[in-house]
């Protein structure tokens, strides 16, 4: 789904390295780039080579993408830091698996901190999109390429092993005409008739480095204003809201449906952008909801963003399952039920 959507979004360069559970995407890109005949596919010798190939393709003007799974994404972090510093657009897909270390190949959300806090070194941010369905994988892939070009920034698609193996009917957006994409006046495309350009991130003069850091920061402020996005599900009359993203949100949605049948007024808040975090939407919700249950497939990472957003004004509870274990909607429904009664929410 990401593969087809990427091709339709004008992705013409893909580099990757084998790792489970995302080999299907690499295979799809290999076939598709071959079919469309004006795309380039490379199986690199390592993840580090792949991300550096993406850097090269991006500075030469192509819409470029790489993908991997958790340990492979760690290897790409140096490159992602350079993409951010050099203001190069690129899309990076992380199909998260259990960790740390080599971990396993089961679905996990253990890379939230890595994704939203930068991951690599230095003072930068990465836009992070978290799809929860086949349709959203397709839609957000298009969005990812648009944001990457618009903000000249790496964009991370954060999926997990469950989504990597999922099959669902999807309506793909119409393919774009690559030749109609806006001109990029900064690419290294041959200096005939104009002065040479240089793309670098080595700024030995602290004043120059500070200038770049503030320039990036102004860009991040713009992004924070313009793109935060979240889905609210049955939250209008809710006394309690579950907060979850990606696969965890799908499980939570099932749980919310179940407890609604039992008469509990519970909703779901699902962040779609993880950075920038949809703080304002969450704050709006906290005007009438006092208790929030954060559910993640890890030991508690996004819960920090929830607490930062709510600034201590709401009760934030947490339930998590790490290591690639998958909770059932029943398990979450039980958690909701217990919490709901413990907090006396039925009396409100």
């Amino acid at each position, binding site marked *: 789904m990401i593969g087809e959507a990427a091709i339709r979004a004008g992705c013409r360069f893909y580099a990757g390295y*084998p790792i489970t559970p995302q080999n299907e995407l690499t295979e799809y890109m290999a076939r598709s780039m071959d079919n469309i005949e004006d795309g380039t596919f490379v*199986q690199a010798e390592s993840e580090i080579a792949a991300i550096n190939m993406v850097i090269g393709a991006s500075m030469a003007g192509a819409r470029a993408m790489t993908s991997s799974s958790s340990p492979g994404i760690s290897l790409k972090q140096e490159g992602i830091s350079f993409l951010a510093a050099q203001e190069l657009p690129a899309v990076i897909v992380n199909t998260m698996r259990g960790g740390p270390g080599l971990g396993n190949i089961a679905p996990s959300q253990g890379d939230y901190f890595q994704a939203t806090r930068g991951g690599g070194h230095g003072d930068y941010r990465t836009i992070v999109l978290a799809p929860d369905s086949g349709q959203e994988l397709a839609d957000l892939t298009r969005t990812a390429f648009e944001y990457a070009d618009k903000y000249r920034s790496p964009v991370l698609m954060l999926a997990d092993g469950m989504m990597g193996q999922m099959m669902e009917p999807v309506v793909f957006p119409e393919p774009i005409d690559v030749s109609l994409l806006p001109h990029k006046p900064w690419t290294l495309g041959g200096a005939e008739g104009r002065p040479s350009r240089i793309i670098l991130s080595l700024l030995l003069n602290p004043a120059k480095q500070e200038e770049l850091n503030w320039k990036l920061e102004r860009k991040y402020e713009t992004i924070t204003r313009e793109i935060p996005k979240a889905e609210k599900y049955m939250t209008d009359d809710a006394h309690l809201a579950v907060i979850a993203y990606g696969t965890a949100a799908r499980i939570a949605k099932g749980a919310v449906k179940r407890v609604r049948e039992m008469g509990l007024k519970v909703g779901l808040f699902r962040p779609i952008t993880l950075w920038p975090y949809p703080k304002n939407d969450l704050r709006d919700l906290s005007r009438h909801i006092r208790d929030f249950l954060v559910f993640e497939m890890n030991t508690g990472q996004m819960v920090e963003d929830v607490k930062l957003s709510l600034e201590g004004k709401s009760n934030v509870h947490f339930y998590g399952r790490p290591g690639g274990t998958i909770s059932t909607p029943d398990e979450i429904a039980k958690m909701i039920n217990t919490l709901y009664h413990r907090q006396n929410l039925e009396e409100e």
Partner: protein
Amino acid sequence: MKKGPFDMGQIDIAWCPGCGNFGILTALKGALTELGVRPEKLVIASGIGQAAKTPHYVRTNVFNGLHGRAVPAATAIKAANPGLTVIAEGGDGDMYGEGGNHFIHAIRRNPDITVIVHNNMVYALTKGQASPTSSIGFKTPVQVRGVTEEPFNAIAVSVALNASFVARAFAGDHDQTKDIIKKAVSHRGFALVEILQPCVSFNKVNTYQWFKENTAYHEASYDPSDRFAAFKRATEAEKMLLGIFYVNPDKPCFEDTLPPYYKETTPLFKRRIDGEKLFGLIDSRRRV
């Protein structure tokens, strides 16, 4: 069958029936047993891949670490405790792809370790992508028009870098493989044993039959001290040659160049700190 010192007993093995790894595992355990290596004095380090699972099935000390990084880990294990026999084991993708840079620089550094590379010319753990050693034209779901890159010739690279021991074996030949591993482990310095290995699930080209037809052993009179002859054989031979290509016993081992081992070989963790010497050093740098 009598249980050997490296046998695990009843265990689940993740390899497919007929996998070349089984032959390599048996030859490795046989070689270590015949050399009299004690399991408690051996460490096998590996990375990621089907081959990198091998040490899981050997009763000894095992470090299973990062993809491509077994060789640097093995180098440091040997440097921290030269009394151990250290083997790094992995496949062609692990050692030549992801770990290619480490492979090259370990040869330059020359630690006294044995590097065993199972070469099945395919990524098997991730289900069948071309590897650095896949032949030109090899088709996979990813290499849809077939491989276009020149295969990585590890034997030629090692000889070119003046590696201290360079050999190639075939997983189907138990006795010869065992013998080569014994010589490699006994050798002082970096020893490469590349073992050609059929992958019955994801490589339908380089089969047992193919290897039988496309390999041949060096003749008994071949002299492995001649580097140029070795390079010629690694690059120009009609068939992939098997046996010991090149031995250079005169290179100093990495550990021997490290100051802690000038006088004694006691492992670092067993040494007492000479407080007087240490504080003397600190005091000598004080300015006030």
